[in-house]
């Protein structure tokens, strides 16, 4: 092959340019994240104080006020959603892990994939149609229902994987001792899979903590303290949204602060989940 054909110098330069471009793209994406987080911290940290975290919103024009009811509402809505999602998700995961192959398990997995791709606003419409329109009022419970739908695919898929990842010999060991499938699964296999399942739960909660779209017509929001899930309720993500699109600088500042709270919550949950997973993996290797 002639040296002239190889054009090594040019190709090397082209490659260097390409590599730089690729590096630039990766750095750009990472920098965008830092820029967004940075902005949220800078803009939001000023407005965070005890009053902000514990007070009710003030009426328009009255300075001060807080998102106390939104924080409470977030905890209540996510709490109820978790109570509903975990049994259904875990049981379906158990079914898929125990019954493995076959038309029905595959159909369930397909449905789970379908659900994971549905836009959250459409799920909000579902919750509206089932729990708001017939009862003729907004409620935190309908928001929990929507959140449950959002959490389910994650829970189903990861609990199936978690149960599958328990070594076969543990399950066989339990069965070989004469345990029923019930005892073997509930008392031996599930506890062994527990770290992975809890990780999945934390990630599912992180996912819905920032969700706003379904809340628009399920929880709807409120200006007051509310503990009854049957009533409309303030939720932090919804408050941030409403404040952000409002024309009042006071509220806009609070929107940044609320956004900071959301970001911190989601980060703690996501990182916490990752750490748990890493520790659990280490434990199994001992």
């Amino acid at each position, binding site marked *: 092959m002639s040296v002239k054909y*190889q054009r090594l110098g040019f*190709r090397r330069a*082209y*490659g260097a340019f*390409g*590599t730089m*471009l690729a*590096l*630039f*793209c*990766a*750095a750009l*994406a*990472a920098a965008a*994240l830092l820029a*967004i987080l940075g902005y*949220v911290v800078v803009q939001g940290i000023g407005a965070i104080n005890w009053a902000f975290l514990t007070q009710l919103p003030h009426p328009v024009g009255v300075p001060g006020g807080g998102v106390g009811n939104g924080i409470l509402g977030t905890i209540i809505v996510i709490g109820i959603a978790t109570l509903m999602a975990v049994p*259904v998700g*875990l*049981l*379906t995961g158990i*079914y898929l892990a*125990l019954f493995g192959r076959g038309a029905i398990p595959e159909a369930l997995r397909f*449905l789970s*994939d*379908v*659900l994971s*791709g*549905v*836009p959250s*606003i*459409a*799920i909000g*419409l579902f919750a*509206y149609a*089932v729990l708001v329109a017939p009862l003729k009022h907004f409620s935190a419970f309908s928001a929990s229902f929507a959140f449950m*739908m959002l959490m389910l695919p994650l829970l*189903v898929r990861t609990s199936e994987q978690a149960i599958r990842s328990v070594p076969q010999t543990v399950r066989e060991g339990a069965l070989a001792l004469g345990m*029923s*499938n*019930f005892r073997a699964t509930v008392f031996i296999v599930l506890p062994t899979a527990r770290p992975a399942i809890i990780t999945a739960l934390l990630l599912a909660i*992180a996912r819905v*903590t*920032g969700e*706003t*779209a379904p809340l*628009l*017509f399920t929880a*709807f929001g409120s200006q007051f303290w509310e503990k009854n899930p049957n009533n409309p309720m303030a939720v932090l993500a919804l408050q*941030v*949204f409403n404040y*952000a699109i409002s024309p009042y600088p006071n509220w806009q500042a609070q*929107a*940044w602060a609320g*956004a900071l709270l*959301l*970001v911190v919550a*989601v*980060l703690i949950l*996501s990182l916490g989940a990752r750490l748990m997973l890493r520790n659990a993996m280490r434990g199994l290797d001992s």
Partner: protein
Amino acid sequence: MSTDTGFRRVARFVSPADRGFAAVVYGGSILFALLIVALFVELVIGAWPSIVAFGPSFIWKSSWDPITSKFGALPMIYGTVVTSFIGIALAAFVGIMAAVFLSDFAPRWLATPLSFLIELLAAVPSVVYGLWGLFVLSPFVRTTIGPALQHVLGWTPLFSGPIYGVGLLTAGIILALMIVPTVTAISRDVIAAIPRDLREASMALGATKWETATRVVLPAARVGIFGACILALGRALGETIAVTMVIGNRPQISASLFAPSYTLASVIANEFTEATTSIYISALIELGLILFVVSIVVNALARVMIWSVRGSR
């Protein structure tokens, strides 16, 4: 005389405790399936009056007038398509480049933190993106990016017209940011799964590392990468809150990317609680149904592609 246990594809549930357990497990799974089926059914029921009233012309009519109860989805479809297209175009380029860098070029000490940061982008709530988009990106588009683009490309209809800051372009950029982690993470997996022998064979033939990456590895991974892009596109199509906050919320079709517009998801978010008549509500639900169907198709397509390259999930 002799027994044949027969093929057993399922775990065996015999004792009474097991029968109760089996019932509970079956029950939970059936409930799961029913919920998803109910989701589809309820959307259809809710949309039915609108489907009946407007028929297929819903999709190509462009008037969106609550007062006369004439609804057409075209502006929303246009806005959704344009913003998603901008989003995926930007995200695909940046994301695939980033994936190539992270998997084939970056040293471990760089790749791990960078990948982590990019994945973290996926965890940021939508409303935070919207907030940033509204107060940081929109002004930036209005004062810097917009005029620059108009200066260079203003002769095309795409970049003509007044620059409000909010509009199709801003929404497209925000979408790109939101879906770039998806493209990067999956593409990176797909690229990493391409066997080393392929790369080594290419290098042994005298190709540079970059040539190997772009002319050998990427083509080999193209089906999976395309699947990643389709999956990301699916996410972009359904994104609601961030888009609502930066798109201007006006039901119009305009050639300029600087113009405000509407998407299927953002119109529902914006108008649902204000909808007064039942046909209005039904039309909005029909938009939700369209979103639902499109997302299923797109996601199924994506998974088939990714699955075929990555093997079993």
